């Protein structure tokens, strides 16, 4: 029998690590290093003048202030509204619960541009809330962010709540605690890690929101993300953009550290819960929460979605499919260079490429991180790699796009004119999702199964094929679906990199909104519906493959 008992040798690990390391080195580390270099290095020496100059501007601080304010407001609201939602959708049993859970998830899988367009369809003149004059306001942006992130809170907290052992709460009640007091003293502390974890994720998503803010905020409201884009594409001021990217990297690193810290606490807490879920029929005392959640879901989620669909069917001539038939044109006054359908085709092609790239790199990383080698040195290396691979986890798409723009568009690596840049950037955005989908499943595989296979004579490759792969099967499908949907909706990085003659669907939608004319707005709405149906369809198929384990949620 082989001396390593079916475990990978050091050489095996190195070989497996080399592809993801090379990929991340070339497409993540190098662009990020270039950004920092542009911001801080001039003529080969450290130069803080650009940094201090940008940071001295009042405009910069206004933008940072707005970014933090909108992220804080969005997070606070998402948590406040999401907690009752988590209770209603995960602790109560009622007909249609599965459908309600799916409905709540829809916004999260919608491309950010579509979210922006859906809210604008409500707020522009002629929309359901057009009279509020909220178009382009702070409130509109925050509402859209909450719309988008409500599902994160509901699902993260809910899936934990569903598995929470009910007995401590019952004990507290028997010991004289009122329902509210038992919740506050027993349930809430048990949920705190999940809430913190959800909140830090939501904060990250809000702070890096790009498409939604760009579409809804108009020119008046800028976040660090949109400002990087504006400085790069409108003012061609790459130094300022670089400094702002560094600021954004700091924001992301901060929220990631917070998320990692709370996730660790959550994993500690997870050990304490029973396997079975505990839910009960709706009782009279639950009715206020049910009513509250119904209003939130109805107002926050159903209204914008309905408005998007309804308004896409409204043409200057009345109700009809006019906007959809126009998708075969380039828009009124030739707003576009290609038809919307051609852009959709481009999107699908790019999504295929982005998916296989992200899957290749993601599976290798997840495989590596799930191993528990016996040698202490190898263990330590895996620990370091773990931290390293998680770095791009929350990288803002805009930073990726900007980094590619200033790194890969000239020798030695000139990919600017080649069409591979967009799928690679999208893959980079999707890889963290692949890892987060696969890693919990792989880590849940009992090491004894692998040992048993090894004792029976399997080499590492056979062990993977015989033990890990069957368990992974469904999750692989889920990860493929996530990649595909992420790629279809990706806007932040793509907006920097897509060539004018080969735009993707989100890019086309954004251009249509920017061009005057009701015909173009109608087409943007119709194209958004098409894009939304594509991504939700892909996710719906993939979700059916989800292995039901709480750890793999989100």
């Amino acid at each position: 029998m082989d001396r390593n008992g079916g475990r990978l040798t050091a050489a095996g690990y190195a070989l497996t690590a080399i592809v993801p390391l090379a990929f991340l080195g070339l497409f993540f580390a190098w662009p990020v290093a270039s950004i920092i270099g542009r911001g801080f290095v001039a003529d080969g020496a450290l130069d803080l003048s650009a940094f201090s100059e940008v940071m001295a501007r009042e405009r910069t601080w206004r933008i940072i202030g707005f970014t933090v304010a909108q992220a804080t407001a969005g997070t606070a609201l998402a948590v406040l509204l999401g907690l009752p939602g988590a209770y209603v959708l995960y602790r109560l049993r009622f007909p249609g619960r599965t459908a309600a859970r799916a409905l709540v998830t829809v916004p999260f899988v919608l491309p950010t541009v579509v979210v922006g367009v859906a809210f604008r369809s409500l707020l522009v003149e002629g929309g359901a809330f057009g009279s509020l004059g909220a178009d382009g306001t702070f409130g509109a942006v925050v509402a859209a962010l909450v719309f988008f992130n409500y599902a994160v809170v509901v699902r993260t907290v809910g899936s934990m709540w569903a598995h929470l052992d009910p007995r401590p709460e019952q004990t507290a009640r028997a010991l004289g605690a009122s329902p509210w007091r038992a919740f506050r003293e027993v349930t809430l502390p048990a949920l705190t890690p999940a809430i913190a974890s959800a909140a830090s994720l939501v904060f990250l998503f809000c702070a890096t929101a790009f498409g939604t803010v760009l579409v809804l905020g108009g020119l008046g409201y800028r976040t660090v993300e949109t400002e990087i884009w504006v400085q790069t594409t409108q003012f061609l001021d790459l130094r300022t953009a670089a400094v702002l990217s560094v600021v954004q990297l700091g924001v992301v690193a901060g929220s990631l550290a917070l998320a990692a810290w709370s996730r660790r606490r959550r994993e500690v807490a997870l050990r304490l819960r029973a396997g079975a879920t505990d839910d009960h029929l709706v009782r009279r005392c639950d009715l206020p929460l049910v009513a509250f959640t119904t209003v939130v879901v109805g107002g926050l989620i159903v209204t914008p979605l309905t408005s998007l669909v309804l308004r896409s069917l409204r043409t200057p001539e009345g109700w009809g499919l006019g906007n959809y038939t126009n998708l075969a044109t380039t828009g009124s006054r030739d707003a576009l260079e290609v038809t919307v359908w051609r852009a959709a085709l481009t999107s699908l092609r790019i999504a295929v490429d982005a998916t296989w790239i992200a899957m290749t790199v993601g599976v290798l990383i997840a495989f590596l991180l799930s191993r528990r080698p016996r040698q202490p040195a190898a263990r330590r290396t895996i620990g370091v790699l773990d931290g390293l691979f998680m770095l791009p986890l929350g990288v803002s798409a805009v930073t990726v796009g900007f980094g590619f723009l200033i790194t890969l568009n000239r020798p030695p690596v000139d990919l600017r004119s080649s069409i591979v840049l967009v799928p690679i950037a999208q893959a980079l955005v999707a890889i963290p999702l692949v890892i987060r989908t696969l890693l919990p499943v792989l880590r849940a595989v009992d090491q004894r199964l692998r040992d048993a296979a090894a004792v029976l004579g399997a080499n590492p490759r056979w062990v993977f094929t015989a033990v890990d792969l069957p368990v992974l099967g469904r999750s692989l499908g889920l990860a493929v679906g996530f990649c595909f949907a992420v790629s279809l909706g990706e806007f932040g990085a793509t907006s920097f990199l897509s060539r004018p003659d080969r735009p993707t669907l989100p890019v086309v939608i954004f251009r249509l909104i920017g061009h005057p004319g009701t015909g173009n707005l109608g087409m943007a709405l119709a194209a958004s519906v098409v894009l939304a149906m594509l991504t939700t369809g892909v996710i719906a198929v993939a979700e059916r493959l989800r292995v039901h384990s709480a750890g793999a949620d989100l």
Partner: protein
Amino acid sequence: MSGLAVRDLVVRFGATTAVDTVSLDIELGTVVALLGPSGCGKSTLLRAVAGLESLTAGSVAWGGADLAGLPVHRRRFGLMFQDGQLFPHRDVGGNVEFGLRMAGVDRAERAERVAELLELVGLAGYERRPVSTLSGGEQQRVALAQSLAPRPELLLLDEPLSSLDRTLRERLVGELSAILSKTRTTALYVTHDHDEAFTVADQVAVMAAGRLLQTAPPQRLWRHPADRSVAAILGYRWFAPATSLGLDGAAMAALRPESLVVDAEGPLTGRVLDHRFTRGGITVRVDVDNLGEVEARTPHLDPPTVGGLVRLRVEPAAVALFG
């Protein structure tokens, strides 16, 4: 009427009836064990008494007052589960004093009572220990102290020792019984283990498939189960007309392995099928005329020959009579 009075209680979950028209009384200061196989509805009955399940029909009363509409936290009943009831984010002291805090007892008094209870359950000085560092047995001691701290009117114990291993369980059940009688606690003790039920209870109520079959003091239940199904739940495995065993006073006799003893002078004859070692001796499987296959104990250390004939005698104290 004082104590607990359950009348015609029904609890239904959709189409299944978990508790089917059960009536049960517990007098103040006594312990009633609710004994039955798993899934028979005994835990649901306990949860209904606690107020954790809504009643489909019937009533639960304490001290003559109907408890309908009285929420769990106002019933002043204690609860003890087999595991998982301790608050993981509080230390031992924080767990034990929880009920006292809810009752608004001041800090000094709480500390005093916590110390007193930890002393009672044999964990004096454990106040500041995190609960996650305790062994299973220690956790259940803390759980008992926690549920007893606010001096509940009625203590509801749901399989409190089932998660512990056998040796520990046998030791703890004795201690638990002593603590309950020392504190004169009125208690409903749900279990599927008859040894536990007989050790702790003044009255044992036998339950199967949602219905209460019989309630009696241990001794009487053991000697005179109401019918064959109760006898079977108590562990009696073979049934025969009492006269065929030379017993009288009832129509039927129920036997368990301890009821028959290999004895050269015994009145019954059977063929030895096989034998095995069990706790405290040898158990022989014998095919007895008119009785079929039964098991018997032998006081001898060397087993009888397989295929040979043995004579058996009936141990009257280990036989139940009914009908």
